[in-house]
């Protein structure tokens, strides 16, 4: 049994705000932001600028759910349930942003099993129900996509370290390798010849054991939807979004650095660590700034996505990341 550690990230659950309330606040704020920057455009149409109908629908179906805060620890508002569940990068379905929500609607997520093995003393296969028995947390994290957009998302899940402590990695184990389900019948994008499916990602053991690293099973207090990686996905908030692998069926402890899907398909552009870093540009575009979904204009990207204090000790050697994005800076 792990004792729940308090970090700067966790927000006391004393202040519970019903979903519909902050949704309306969020709408107001995005409305204000849009109007301020683009008054000329906002002036020529009535009503609220960001999709309101969907938000109302989400509120109607999930009226009882709640999150513990309306902002992240930096004071930036949560993205709406609507935004988070309709704007997804999930190439297993297709390469558009709104496609996964449509195509993943009937994706079967139950029954589900996650096989944990490799260099461990007690290999074990977890049913989803077993995973839900671990101590559940809510974590409000920024998600920074390598494409230079970002969101603030309230996840529900548990520490990945729970699983690792149970299976007990052997001393040879240095990395954790994750694999997404391979199910081309239900994931049409997996028929694409451009990628070596299934999706693979990896972390060092130290990263996997980190307090910030969670496996998420929920969002806004509700079970994860397929387009967000249901039933269980990784969330590592200081790395680019593509590291947070979705629909996990396999976790292996390994001795060698795993080759992720993106490393395999574009080795000069995507590295193993892929830590958010405004100083290290993608070979084709800048990582210095980002667009927060729901806002106009840009904000500066923060080193390690704003989690520098918590993770910087893991990267003492400045050359650790020379393969990231292919840049040798």
């Amino acid at each position, binding site marked *: 049994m792990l004792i729940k550690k308090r970090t700067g990230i966790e927000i006391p659950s004393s202040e519970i705000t019903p979903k519909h309330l902050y949704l309306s606040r969020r709408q107001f704020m995005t409305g204000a932001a849009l109007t301020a920057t683009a008054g000329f455009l906002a002036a020529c149409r009535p009503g609220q600028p*960001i999709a309101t109908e969907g938000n109302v629908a989400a509120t109607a179906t999930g009226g009882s759910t709640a999150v513990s805060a309306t902002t992240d620890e930096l004071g930036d508002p949560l993205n709406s349930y609507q935004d988070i569940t309709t704007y997804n990068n999930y190439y297993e379905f297709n390469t558009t942003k709104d496609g996964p929500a449509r195509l993943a609607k009937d994706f079967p997520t139950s029954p589900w099993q996650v096989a944990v093995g490799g260099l461990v003393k007690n290999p074990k296969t977890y049913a989803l129900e077993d995973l839900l028995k671990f101590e559940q947390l809510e974590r409000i994290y920024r998600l920074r996509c390598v494409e230079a*957009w970002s969101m603030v998302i309230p996840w529900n899940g548990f520490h990945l370290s729970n699983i690792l402590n149970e299976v007990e990695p052997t001393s040879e184990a240095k990395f954790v390798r994750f694999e997404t389900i391979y199910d081309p019948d239900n994931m049409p994008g997996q028929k694409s010849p451009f990628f070596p499916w299934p999706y693979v990602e990896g972390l060092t053991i130290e990263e996997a054991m980190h307090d910030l690293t969670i496996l998420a099973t929920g969002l806004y207090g509700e079970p994860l939807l397929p387009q967000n990686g249901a039933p269980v996905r990784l969330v590592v908030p200081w790395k680019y979004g593509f590291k947070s692998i979705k629909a996990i069926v396999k976790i292996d402890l390994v001795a060698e650095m795993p080759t992720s899907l993106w490393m395999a398909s574009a080795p000069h552009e995507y590295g193993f660590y892929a830590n958010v870093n405004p100083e290290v540009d993608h070979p084709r575009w800048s990582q210095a700034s980002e*667009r927060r979904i729901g806002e106009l*204009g840009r904000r500066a990207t923060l080193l390690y996505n704003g989690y520098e204090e918590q993770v910087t000790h893991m990267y003492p050697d400045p050359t650790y990341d020379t393969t990231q994005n292919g840049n040798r800076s």
Partner: protein
Amino acid sequence: MALVTDTMTKLRKLDRKTWQQLLRVGAHILALYPLALLLRDYYYVNLGADPVREMLLRTGEPALVLLILSLAITPLNTLFGWKQLIPLRRIFGLYAFMYVSLHFLTFVWLDYGLNLQFIWDGVVEQNFVLVGFAAFILLLPLAITSNKWSQRKLGKKWKTLHKLVYIIILLALIHFWWLVKNVYYMPFLYSAVVTILLLMRWQPVKQKALRFQRRYRNWRTQNPISKERSAN
């Protein structure tokens, strides 16, 4: 069915001037259609979670398509001798410039909020943006000199100047290739079309196309429209 063939016959009987006018109107409608859809979706708040990205894509792609359409006119003329299409070249080119300008404005204003620091530090060093920007800048003199007066004033130089469009289309294609992450169907499709259109300007291919045009014209005179009508 009778209505359709009737209309077709009527259309064929139209004189050249009316045809040109119809084509012109059609070109304007076609070119404005993506903008109309974009404005409609903006008005009805239907641009999704990231309206800025949507606006960037939906001004960038029409720009590319219109540029390609404008490049397609000359080869179509070579193949079929459809001189009435020639004015569309300018219309498509100018609309391409309009979409590129909207694309650029969306980028610096709605996306980057006119934040010069971000634009300079983060963007200007990046090839992806630079290539797109270069295409925009090169299109500028072409748009300015697209009128008859400049054409007369510049004489032979006008033709040379407007050859810039070949560089512009290549820059635009590179911009598109660099935008995409690994799934290259669309950039490939556009590049293939552009390759064909450029090849059609290469003398050996052009000569073959002109021979085809002569055969096509002969066939057309041997099968006059009036015959088809009497068959109906």
